[in-house]
C-alpha cells in the first residue's frame, strides 16, 4: 500500500487534478471517483442513443436491453442506426463489431496486467473493459494486483451503473433534447481529453498526431476500418523511429 502511494505520488505531472483524497483513499474509492468526471461527457451520448433507438422504431425496453448486453456506446449506436436504415442483422452486427474492434487492442494491452489475477477477474473485468476504463488503467498504472483489481472493477462498474441509468433516461427523454444544442460534441471533446491524459511523453503525443493524420487519410474506408489501420501503422512507425534513434 505504501509503495503504491509512493508510486502514484511520483507520477505527479499527469495527476495534477488529484486532490488529497487521492493519496489516502482506497483503490476502489479512487476508481469510482476517477470514473465520475469521465462519465459526464458520456451523458449526452446516452441521449443520442435514445434518439437513435426512437428513430429506428425499436421498443424502448428492447433498445435499452443492449446496454447490459453489449455495454459499449458507439457499438450500440452503430447497431441501431443500421437497423433503423433497414440493414440486415448480419450487416448491422458486423458493422457494429468492426466499430468495436479497438477493444481487441485494449485486450492485448491489458493482458500483462491480467496475468497475475484470478480467473474470475478475467471474466468480469473483460465485461467492463471500455474506452474510459482502459485509459484510466493506462494513466494510473497500479502494480499491486489486488489494488489494480479493485481500482479497475470500481471504475468499470461505476461507469456501468451510470450507463444503465442514463441510457434508460435517454430512450425516454432523448427525443426531447433540441438537436441544435450540439451536445453530442461532448464525445470528441472527451476523447481529446483522454488522448492528452494518456500522452504523458512527447513520443506518445507524436504517435497520437500521426494516428490523427492517418485516420483522416483513411476516413473513407468502410465501417471506419481506417481507425485500426491508422493505429497499427502509427505504432509500427514509432517503434521503427525508436530503433533508428538507438542505433
Amino acid at each position, binding site marked *: 500500500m505504501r509503495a503504491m502511494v509512493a508510486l502514484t505520488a511520483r507520477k505527479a505531472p499527469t495527476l*495534477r487534478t488529484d486532490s488529497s483524497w487521492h493519496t489516502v483513499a482506497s483503490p476502489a474509492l479512487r476508481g469510482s471517483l476517477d470514473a465520475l468526471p*469521465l462519465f459526464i461527457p458520456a451523458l449526452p451520448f446516452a441521449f443520442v442513443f435514445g434518439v437513435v433507438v426512437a428513430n429506428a422504431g425499436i421498443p424502448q425496453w428492447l433498445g435499452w436491453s443492449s446496454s447490459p448486453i453489449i455495454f459499449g456506446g458507439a*457499438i450500440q449506436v452503430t447497431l441501431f442506426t443500421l437497423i433503423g436504415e433497414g440493414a440486415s442483422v448480419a450487416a448491422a452486427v458486423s458493422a*457494429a463489431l468492426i466499430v468495436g474492434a479497438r477493444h*481487441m487492442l485494449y485486450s492485448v494491452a491489458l493482458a500483462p496486467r491480467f496475468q497475475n489475477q484470478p480467473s474470475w477477474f478475467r471474466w468480469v473485468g473483460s465485461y467492463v473493459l471500455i474506452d474510459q476504463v482502459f485509459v484510466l488503467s493506462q494513466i494510473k498504472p497500479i502494480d499491486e494486483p489486488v489494488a489494480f483489481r479493485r481500482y479497475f472493477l470500481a471504475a468499470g462498474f461505476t461507469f456501468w451503473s451510470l450507463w444503465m441509468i442514463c441510457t434508460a433516461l435517454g430512450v425516454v427523454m432523448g427525443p426531447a433534447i433540441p438537436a441544435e444544442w450540439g451536445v453530442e460534441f461532448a464525445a470528441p471533446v472527451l476523447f*481529446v481529453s483522454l488522448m492528452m491524459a494518456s500522452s504523458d511523453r512527447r513520443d506518445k503525443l507524436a504517435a497520437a498526431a500521426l494516428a*490523427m493524420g492517418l485516420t483522416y487519410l483513411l476516413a473513407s474506408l468502410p465501417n471506419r476500418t481506417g481507425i485500426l489501420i491508422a493505429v497499427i501503422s502509427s505504432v509500427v512507425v514509432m517503434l521503427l523511429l525508436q530503433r533508428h534513434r538507438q542505433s
Partner: protein
Amino acid sequence: MIALAIILTGIGSYVMRAFFIFALARYSFPPLLLRALEYVAPTVMAALVVSMLTTPEGSLAAGLPELMGLICTAVAAKTTGNHILALIAGMGTFWLIGAIL
C-alpha cells in the same frame, strides 16, 4: 430479429474484450511488444476523435467552432490535467464561437 442482433453483438463485443486477456494469460511479453502497447491508448483516442469529425465519405465534418473547441480542450487538458475543466473549455469554446458565427 432485433433481439438476435443485440445478443450476437453482445457476444461479439465480449469476446473481443476477453480474447487476448485469456489467450495471453501465460504469455511472457517481449520488451518490444510492451513498448508498442504504450502507444495504444493515445493513438486509439486520436483516431476516434478524427473519425467522429469526418463523414463516412472521408470529408471533414467540422467547422471553426469544432476545431477551436477541440484545440481549447487539448490545451486545457494538458495544462490542468482535469477532464471537467477540459470539457468546460471545449464545450464553452464550441458554443461561444457557434453563437458568434
